[in-house]
């Protein structure tokens, strides 16, 4: 395996009903379930949540990487991810992910740079690039 390759290992154990545990070595165990619309338990993280969360968190970490490369600072970053699951020919599939990112910077001159970092983060987000569906971005940079 080359340097340009990495492995990620997870484990899932069913416990009861439609509920199980997700384990990733060295990290807290997470209780997981099907979502309520597919007969799962309310209030427990579902694979659908995690799918959207993977794209949203990848956008964040990639944004941070680009701000470091560009040597710019930002005061805050937040992002809302919305995933759309639709019935297609072969059962359900995610057809769209919308990421609404908001970044706060200290001064006006940082705005275009932060916008560029968000644009690059969208382009190089490895999780989004591993999904079949398109990812749309609504980026907002404010001075605050």
């Amino acid at each position, binding site marked *: 395996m080359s340097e*340009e390759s990495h492995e990620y290992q997870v484990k899932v154990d*069913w416990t009861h009903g439609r509920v199980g545990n997700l384990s*990733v070595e060295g990290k807290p165990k997470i209780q*997981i379930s099907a979502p309520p619309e597919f007969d799962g338990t309310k209030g427990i993280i579902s694979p659908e949540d995690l*799918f959207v969360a993977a794209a949203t*968190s990848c956008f*964040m*970490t990639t944004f*941070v990487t680009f701000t470091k490369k560009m040597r710019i600072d930002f005061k805050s970053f937040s992002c809302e991810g919305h995933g759309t699951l639709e019935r297609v020919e072969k059962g359900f599939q995610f057809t769209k992910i919308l990421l609404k990112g908001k970044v706060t910077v200290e001064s006006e001159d940082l705005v275009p740079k932060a916008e560029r970092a968000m644009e690059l983060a969208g382009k190089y987000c490895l999780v989004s*690039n591993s999904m079949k569906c398109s990812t749309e971005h609504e980026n907002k940079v404010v001075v605050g």
Partner: protein
Amino acid sequence: MIKSGSPSGGSEEVSYHTPEDLFVASATICYMNGFLNFLERMHIDSNSFECNAVGILEKIGRSFEITKIEMKAKVVIESEELRSKIERALELAAKYCFVGNSMKCPITHETEVIVE
């Protein structure tokens, strides 16, 4: 709360779930949910279900992509006569996994059904 981030090597960050973890986990859990759904429809039970999954991240051109997910599922059942039905439920779960079907990469499934 699930903390997410890319590990920078600092000890306080060791326990963060990365976006890559969440991506691989979403496909694995969806496979479990599909299996449970098909068990119910087929009116059969299993004593346990566990699944180990590995996602491979590789450089494609100028950026990275998850190129493959390998799943290894293990199911324990009560009697031999359930085996073929359980194998069918595993097969259908793999075929109709919403999350897996939303990913570009191929997903392989190795399954083991044990009678105890």
